[in-house]
């Protein structure tokens, strides 16, 4: 493994994000498995950007099913990933966002550009 790859591999293993890429549909699903605060945002951000850039998806979905806490760090994290996705022409959507977290997103108006898609059901 190359050095950069290995470093990313380590971060990946330590981060709380599950990655699922559908080659056929070019759909990248990032399932966050942790609380999102300033402490956690950094590693989530690195893993997400790394995956978005190397997979070159058409659409990125952030799955919040296992996120029970988020503060303003999450707003920055989501907007930042929107920027990364936009750079390669990919769309960004969110699914399974809990009420207390939705409340925070609603305060910012970003749901107009990064929608919460409801149809997905919880596994």
């Amino acid at each position: 493994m190359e050095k950069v790859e290995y470093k990313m591999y380590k971060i990946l293993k330590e981060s709380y994000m599950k990655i699922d890429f559908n080659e056929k549909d070019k759909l990248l699903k990032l399932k966050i498995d942790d609380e999102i605060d300033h402490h956690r945002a950094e590693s989530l951000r690195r893993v997400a950007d790394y995956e978005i850039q190397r997979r070159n998806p058409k659409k990125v979905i952030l799955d919040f099913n296992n996120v029970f806490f988020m503060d303003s760090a999450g707003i920055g994290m989501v907007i930042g990933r929107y920027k990364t996705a936009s750079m390669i022409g990919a769309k960004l959507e969110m699914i399974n966002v809990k009420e207390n977290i939705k409340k925070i997103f609603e305060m910012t108006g970003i749901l107009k550009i990064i929608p919460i898609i409801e149809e997905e059901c919880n596994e």
Partner: protein
Amino acid sequence: MNKKKYDNEMKLEIMSKSSNEAFARITVSAFASQLDPTIEELSDIKTAVSEIVTNSIIHAYDTSDEIIKIHSMIEDNSITIEISDTGKGIEDIELARKPLYTTKAELERSGMGFTIVETFMDELKIESILGLGTKITMKKIIHNCEENNLESES
């Protein structure tokens, strides 16, 4: 702690390490739970504490070995939380309160911290002196426990 002024009181000092953000919000919410808040009220308190503690870590201090003080008081059906640092201080408090205002956009901050606290809590007071530090006081009334109190809020 001196003579009884409140129904209950708690003090906590933490180092300005980001791993303490979760510790602080969980501790304060555990203390608040004696008021029998709803899950939503508890979640609001957790978020507010996280916002303010994170602000001290990111904006007040440059290093992670400084001290952040948290003082929490329960009186009737309300909880008051004071969080203070001895860091840089806020230059313009009016501006800092505005949604989307941030001095750290390069760190992917959105400038929504104080706006979230203002929405989730019933009171937010910001006191700050440049070069000396910042003290945030916030209060939340827990509506859930009104029925248990003989004298409910007036």
